[in-house]
């Protein structure tokens, strides 16, 4: 049994504190409470996921902080309305007779809360988003209403971009291949697949992706977001039922909505809740008419980008088989980044990819490119090629983008004859384990699976989130902070994305900075016993001391 599991619960319980038992707001379960499904121990034994409970004082102070911000916001709105404070933002002019485009309360949050820490987002960069990046300096003379670029830039370590396997590069074999393709093909394909926009490079890419995934066929789309929103409507329709994890990405939510099917959400990664709802759905059929559902589609992500959790795929698969549902697996953050061969969560769990009905993923993250794919049976892909919105109405992938995927994918597959691909996969994995363990040691509350490349560090207070981001940047670490509405209101967090391009020195340096800033801002909330694991997979569960 993982030392991070059972042992923890006991110690914690004797303390009278129920660290991360059941997370109230997003239904996370942690540290081995998944044992109820204990019949399938082989994957559970190397499973470690943690969602430590929010400390009460942090929750109280955060709510108070929001209360104060809202109060001040209302006072300042009032002052702006009567003209004591000047309007610095660009406001909607009053057009006689027109209904205002925005309601004042709609932008209250943006105007009064978001604006205060606006400098933590949309930071422009002027270099490749690799392991280092050049962040351009912005100046604001009116507290975040407007920004001006100065000519200066700062070189910082990049722990914010989704560059999992480090293929965001401006030199090397991928770049060389893309350069050649650009001069052979140009930068656009000139039409949709069905309207003479199907180039040989697309065929090559489709076939390679299918081979990479281990499925019969695949189809690629030039935008990851659109892969979901434009293909889901071809799969389910009215009279079908979609079970969607409550934390699914906006593109999945939009795609589901465009299908016209009934959508039900279940608690994040909570398989008991899913099974209960699935059972009810199959037994009772459609509401009112009680006709049986035409199809049931379970929509999950491989790794959730805000929580760093990994889908309990074996369990989803069991439910799929039992209730005859179909699985739509979005591997946006897991393809390339998870599994011993970098083939995603399917590879991580050692599951046959042909058991997953719809394999979806993006090329933005691990492949340093853009776009997305759908993989599955030949029957599925034939159907999509004929009926997908993306195949009919919008141009196919720009050739340079396609070439970047082909080149990087071949490297991961080892087709270039070097072990570079596997080295990167291994490096990423080591980085993740090491970084996560060290953060736990430093006493932070870290969410998610120990193998997830997305590492959320809980900050709670929105003001501290802004401060964290600025202080880190000042010290040479570029990272991302997220808050409401992307997370529950009190769970503002910083998010680190690890990369195979990060060296151990870089990771250590980043940890030093995080330690320093964390001490400064008093962010070390964790009361959980520090988990101990090794970076090496074989000894993953052996304590290192």
């Amino acid at each position, binding site marked *: 049994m993982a030392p991070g599991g059972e042992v923890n619960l006991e110690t914690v319980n004797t303390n009278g504190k129920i660290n991360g038992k059941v997370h109230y707001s997003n239904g996370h379960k942690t540290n081995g409470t998944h044992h109820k499904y204990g019949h399938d121990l082989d994957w559970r034994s190397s499973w470690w996921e943690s969602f430590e409970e929010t400390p009460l004082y942090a929750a109280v102070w955060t709510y108070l902080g929001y209360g104060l911000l809202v109060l001040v916001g209302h006072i300042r709105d009032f002052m702006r309305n009567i003209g004591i404070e000047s309007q610095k933002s660009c406001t909607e002019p009053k*057009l006689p007779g027109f*209904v205002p*485009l925005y309601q004042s309360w709609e932008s209250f949050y943006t105007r009064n809360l978001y604006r205060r820490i606006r400098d933590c*987002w949309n930071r422009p*960069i002027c270099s*490749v*988003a690799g392991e280092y990046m050049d962040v*351009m300096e912005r100046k604001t003379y009116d507290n975040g209403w407007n920004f001006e670029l100065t000519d200066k830039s700062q070189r910082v370590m*990049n722990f914010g*971009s*989704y560059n999992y396997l480090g293929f*965001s590069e*401006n030199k090397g074999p*991928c*770049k060389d291949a893309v*350069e050649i393709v*650009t001069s*052979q*093909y*140009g*930068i*656009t394909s*000139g*039409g949709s697949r*069905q*309207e*003479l*926009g*199907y*180039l040989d490079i697309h065929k090559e890419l489709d076939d390679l992706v299918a081979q990479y995934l281990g499925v019969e066929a695949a189809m690629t789309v030039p*935008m990851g*977001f*659109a892969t979901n*929103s434009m293909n889901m409507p071809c799969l389910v329709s009215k009279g079908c039922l979609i079970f969607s994890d409550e934390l699914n990405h*906006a*593109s999945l939510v939009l795609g589901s909505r*465009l299908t016209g099917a009934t959508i039900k959400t279940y608690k994040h990664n909570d398989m008991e809740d899913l099974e209960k709802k699935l059972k009810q759905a*199959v*037994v009772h059929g459609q509401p009112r008419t009680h006709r049986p*559902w035409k199809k*049931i589609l379970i929509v999950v992500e491989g790794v959730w980008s805000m929580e760093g959790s990994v889908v309990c795929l074996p369990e989803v698969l069991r439910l799929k088989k039992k209730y*005859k549902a179909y699985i739509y697996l979005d591997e946006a953050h897991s393809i390339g980044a998870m599994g011993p061969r970098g083939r995603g969560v399917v590879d991580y769990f050692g599951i046959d990819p042909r058991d997953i*009905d719809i394999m979806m993923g993006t090329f*933005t*993250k691990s492949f*340093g*490119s*853009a776009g997305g794919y759908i993989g599955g049976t030949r*029957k*599925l892909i*034939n*159907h999509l090629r*004929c009926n997908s*919105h993306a195949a*009919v109405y*919008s*141009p196919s992938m720009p050739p*340079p983008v396609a070439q*970047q995927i082909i080149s990087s994918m071949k490297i991961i597959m080892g087709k270039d004859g070097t072990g570079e691909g596997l080295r990167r996969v291994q490096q990423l994995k080591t980085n993740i384990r090491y970084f996560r363990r060290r953060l736990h040691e430093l006493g932070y509350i870290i969410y998610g699976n120990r193998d997830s490349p997305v590492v959320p560090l809980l900050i709670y207070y929105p003001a501290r989130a802004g401060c964290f981001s600025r202080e880190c940047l000042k010290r040479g670490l570029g990272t*991302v902070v997220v808050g409401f509405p992307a997370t529950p209101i009190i769970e503002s967090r910083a998010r680190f994305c690890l990369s195979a391009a990060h060296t151990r020195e870089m990771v250590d340096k980043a940890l030093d900075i995080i330690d320093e800033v964390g001490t400064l801002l008093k962010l070390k909330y964790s009361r959980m016993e520090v988990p101990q694991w090794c970076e090496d997979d074989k000894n993953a569960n052996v304590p290192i001391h």
Partner: protein
Amino acid sequence: MMAIIPATWDMYDMLQAVIQAPTYHLIFEALLIILIVKLVFSKAYAPDKTILTEKEKDELIEEWKPEPLVPDTPDDHPLLRSMENNIITGRPDKIMTINGKSVINMASMNFLGMLGDESIEVAAQKALSKYGVGSCGPRGFYGTMDVHLELEDRLAKFMQAEEAILYSYGFATIASAIPAYSKRGDVIFVDEGVCFAIQKGLVASRSVIKYFKHNDMADLERLCLEQQKEDKKLPKKAKVTRRFLVVEGLYAKHGDICPLPKLVELKWKYKLRIFIEESFSFGVLGDNGRGVTEHFNIKLDEVDLVAACLENAVGGAGGFCCGKKYIVDHQRLSGLGYCFSASLPPMLASGAIQSLNIIENDQSLFSRLHQKSEKIHKELSKIEGMRVMGDKVAPIKHLSLAEPSDDRSLDNRTIEKITQEASQAFGALAILILLWECLNFAMERGLALTPARYLEHEEHQLPPPSIRIAVNVKLTEDEIAKCMDIIADSCHAVLGKS
């Protein structure tokens, strides 16, 4: 305590009241009490609520048979076959290679010939060696490169707008922009002939959609008046109901131009916010390629939002919206496709900037394009048995069958053969297969054309099946003449006329 137990004088009062009450009143109250007791103890009303046992539930689960995930699509489906048989090698320029055969390309939306322009490729390669390919993040999280800002700036300047916002995919641009503003309960007036991206945006907005007949201003006004009547009935609701008007500058499905002056007039009259989708008119219409506003000499301020993709005339990728700052800026937090998607690969942004350089520096580009479009329009109109849809200056032409005047105008044998095959794949849309025959005929003679493809069951309004011809400004007079001959020949050959 005082409040719970009545004080003694209250008790006394109550007793007095009981004694003094008439008998019928007491009986009535007693009956009421009995009724209440009966109601409390009687069995609850349950319309035979079935409680299933676990075994029954398991049986139901066992019994349930879902439909297959997707219907069967054979490997030799005509659409797949036509895709696999027409794979392009290399650059889909004016002259391109399909299956090793060099043909003239009148299929790609390469109106300005940007696809073959070397300087764009050089600019893209230069950006490649600085930024790599992907941006590895959404705009919010270090996915904003300086080239994105530059391109937004340049687009805004070119369109003479306050601000522009860049999307990474053309389709997602208008489809994200509409639901950013229009919410549940709002009203959108839309032309029936709008493209699919707009239709998806409308669905995503969950607003009330009112379609008016294609380019029919009287019909739009009728709907506006209807809405006005409704508003008078519910003035409170009308105060918070935003009204939008969504049209295309140059309709992709019809090839014609929207009557913008009249639309703007109606906008002010009925207080509508007008959004124009300019994917096919941006970089096409107007003396400087600024689109339909320039075509009609209307200030951009008169319209609220212009959205266009960079995939057609500009020869890049992605899309953009432009307009007033207070309108456009809203999308930076509310445009789904903007916030939740990785930004445009910087090398493609650099390519688009170079493309804008060309557009801005070559004054004659657009007059040449219009001239060629008009010439091709004239030539196509001459073909017997066919009808050209659209405006004469539009660089896309839809060539469809003219209504057959009598049965003999089409070769019965061909129709028979074709409908058999077609009915398998497309049901009623046999004509599409007929057009396909034309295309194959043309392809053999060195001209690549494409049918305008639609998802027959998804479109709000399906235009007649057509061959879509795209004009490339770089086509020479000789090439145009040759192409027109080939088109005429193939139509005649397939339609059984000589």
